[in-house]
């Protein structure tokens, strides 16, 4: 697990799927770490992954760009990137950018893992 002032990223495994649990604010200064983790998963040959944003309080366009890059990479390999979003103001950011149509979004990590 890594920790910044307002950012934490933990990786765990559930039912054979990697789950990246993110806490805090994902902005231009912290999104690169998420990008590195997603790249790392792809390089390990993982094709399906879950990013749990339920404890995230802020996302900006940089964070969205990282997630879009991640889903493109995983889909190219025949997989997918599933998101967990529970907070209305985070959902709103995905809605206004049209990204609710891009990602499979779940209400909990358990649901995301189950697909």
């Amino acid at each position, binding site marked *: 697990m890594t920790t910044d002032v307002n950012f934490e990223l933990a990786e765990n495994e559930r039912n054979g799927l990697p789950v990246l649990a993110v806490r805090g*604010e994902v902005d*231009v200064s912290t999104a690169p770490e998420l990008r590195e983790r997603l790249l790392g998963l792809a390089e390990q040959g993982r094709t399906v992954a879950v990013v749990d944003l339920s404890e995230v309080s*802020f996302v*900006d*366009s940089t964070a969205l760009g990282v997630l879009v890059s991640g889903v493109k990479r995983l889909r190219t390999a025949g997989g997918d990137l599933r998101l967990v979003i529970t907070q209305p103001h985070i959902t709103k950011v995905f809605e*206004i950018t*049209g990204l609710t149509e891009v990602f499979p979004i779940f209400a909990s990590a358990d649901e995301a893992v189950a697909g």
Partner: protein
Amino acid sequence: MTGATWPSPGRDIMKEADRVELSVPSKPDLLFLVRMTAAAVASRADFGYDQIEDLRLAIDELCLSLFGEEATDGRVQLLFKWGEDAIEVVATYQPGDDDHQPRQELGLAQLANELSERILDALVDEHGTDLAGGLARAWLRMRRRQGGHQ
């Protein structure tokens, strides 16, 4: 982008405006200071929770439009003004010795720029960018929404 210019129609709503000025180094890891200030100003202006969150994100995108994803030795000067019905923010980038150029001129990811534009279009009433005295400037205006006192 709305295509509006600064100063733009609607300035009358800023009569009796209060104002706060903030100067921060153009470093991504200091953007949280700008967001905190935006939240404090919106709260002071008696905006509701949803609009406070909207302004935090909009300010973040506004600053990204100026200095992008890399730290530079420039600074961003922000002027927050608020009146009875609206908040206005003007952000001006002052380059340092590294002669940094605005984000759009760096050819950074087009996707992030497009997402940023969509976010600003959706969250604020007006926004725009221009050059003022040779300095890159970005601005926005957010009017109080009905039921904003929450």
